[in-house]
């Protein structure tokens, strides 16, 4: 589904990704772990099409299509979703209205009519129940005054509404207490299917107890330095990341 080949990316002429190779197939869950500054969030941003980063080499393909010239909104229409580490506050625009706009823009891009209000309400109800989100919450301004946990839950609610092919969850576990983590993880698990895929970007192994990955990759200095099964996450938790630095130094 997602094929990343020798991806190099930089910001302000500083290279951050230095040759990433990664293939994610439908139905799989991949975890990307690594120390701070290793390039995890940059990788997430670049897949979603953030124009702040310049792809200098390599390619990203989604279902066989090269994404190089594809804008962030078109990537979203094609099924890429990024759950942000720091979601943006939009005063004056309710969660509901924001989702209506997002869904209808995506439908418009596919040549479809706006979703009928009745269907939209039904969808919103269904997905908010999945994430145990209060109805009142949906009429609040997007992310404005939300707690850290509410923001993350709202990100996963948006993912549920948009039903992406590939969802990248950037540090979705940070700032979540254990109850919120459980709700978010169970939401993600329910949304998982054989037709979609998930990339979890995380610093800690904690989230992976709830969303079990098929593959774990370790990112360091802009490269995947180690890949393995879910047991690799446990190993990392035990050993920390210091061994990486030694290994790369050698």
């Amino acid at each position, binding site marked *: 589904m997602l094929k990343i080949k020798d991806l190099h990316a930089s910001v302000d002429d500083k290279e951050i990704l230095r040759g990433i190779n990664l293939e994610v197939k439908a139905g799989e869950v991949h975890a990307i772990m690594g120390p701070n500054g290793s390039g995890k969030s940059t990788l997430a*941003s670049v897949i*979603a*099409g*953030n*124009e*702040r980063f310049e792809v200098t080499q390599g390619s990203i393909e989604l279902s066989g299509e090269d994404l190089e010239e594809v*804008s*962030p*909104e078109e*990537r*979203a*229409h094609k099924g*890429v*979703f*990024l759950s*942000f580490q720091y*979601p*943006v*506050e*939009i*005063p*004056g*625009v309710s969660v509901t*209205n*924001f989702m*209506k*706009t*997002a*869904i*209808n*823009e*995506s439908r418009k*891009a596919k040549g479809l009519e*706006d979703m009928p209000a009745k269907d939209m309400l039904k969808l919103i109800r269904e997905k908010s129940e999945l994430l145990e989100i209060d109805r009142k919450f949906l009429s609040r*301004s997007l992310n404005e005054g939300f707690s850290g946990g509410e923001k993350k839950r709202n990100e996963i609610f*948006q993912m549920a509404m*948009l039903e992406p092919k590939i969802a990248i969850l950037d540090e979705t576990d940070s700032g979540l207490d254990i109850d919120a983590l459980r709700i978010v993880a169970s939401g993600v698990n329910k949304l998982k299917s054989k037709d979609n895929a998930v990339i979890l970007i995380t610093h800690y192994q904690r989230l992976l107890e709830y969303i079990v990955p098929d593959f774990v990759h370790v990112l360091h200095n802009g490269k995947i330095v180690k890949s393995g099964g879910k047991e690799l996450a446990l190993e990392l938790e035990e050993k920390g990341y210091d061994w990486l630095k030694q290994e790369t130094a050698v």
Partner: protein
Amino acid sequence: MDLKDKLISSFMAFENNVDVEHPVHDVRMAAIKNFEEKGFPSKKEEAWKYTSLNSLQKIDFSIFPREENTLEYKDVKKYFLHEIDSYKIVFVDGIYSSYLSETTHDGVDICLMSAALTKPMYKPVIDVYFNKVASKDESLTTLNTAFSREGAYIYIPKNKMPKKPIEIIHFATGNEASILLQPRSLVVVEENAEVQIIERHQSLTSNDTLTNAVTEIFAAKSAIVDFYKIQNDAATASLIDNTYVDQKDKSVVNVHTFSFGGKLTRNNLNFYQNGEYIDSTMNGVTILGEKQHVDHYTLVHHMQPNCESHQDYKGIYGDSSIGVFNGKIIVDKIAQKTNAFQKNNNILISDKASINSKPQLEIFADDVKCSHGCTIGQLDEDALFYLQSRGIPKKEARALLMYAFANNVLESVRIPELKTRINKLIAKKLGVNLGFDL
């Protein structure tokens, strides 16, 4: 003949049509004398550093309309807040349109300045309030005073509140080649009374129009006044709006200025706090494009202790538009415990757009809280990416961010239908249809 000479020589013709025996005419004569001495302000004056009236003075404006023009309601309905019931004071080319208006004398007076300036029953109010807070030496204000004859007259007696908001609309039809309008309005809100006013200047023509308006607002003890100025005029319409507010103890006056249109707009908004525990609010949203120019020049004079003033002006400037914000706050020595806050935040969305923002604080008291902040920036790229990553195209994403930026000012609009209408104007101005009413 330049515009100043033309105006001065027109004054004699004007005198043929007004009651020169009325005491108000002495006020007019003093005013024309002041204007004759000072003339139009030039960029050499600090207060007009960023706004030039030179090109306007070259236009051959008609000073008085030659004929009475009529408009059909269906053609101008969209300029009214027709979603709700309102009193209406409507002028067409400076002449009162009884057909489009809905005035009242039922417990309150919502009518015409021409009546107030001529009928004896209004004389006690005119004697006390007319030209009492408006400047007697600022040249454009005195120009308006000299020709003052018509405009809105609103008198709300003690403890009263009109049943519905009041709309004041000035239409220019363009049947004259180019026209100069000088409406003069007076709003007196007595003790514990309340009023909501929406004001709009609307040109219906591609001919040049220039409006030099003066509005005096008096808020007595515990009175509440909400005044909304909707400036979304045609690209050939220029406006100099001079508004003077006099407030007594515990009164609350909020003036909102929404500037989306017009060629050149200058808002001189002056608040004088003549009492204690007064609250004055000046909020503005300015969204400009093309070569539009808006200059907000505000003054709050804190003359007594324990008062507050709040200013929040948001500006979004595109194309080659120019914005100016000059906010002057004076706190007299006696005005201890003053809280004066001023914010001016701007976004430039084009390399050619510009904003000049200048706070001016003169504080003579020592126990006060005063703050001012000015920001000029671009749209946040990360926020834009967030919206785009949800499938929202760049143009719509930018519009949502701009809307969010101006939101707190919109939230303070207390007439829900007006808020909806302004949201629609903003969406239109930003060229987007977001699929829901903002």
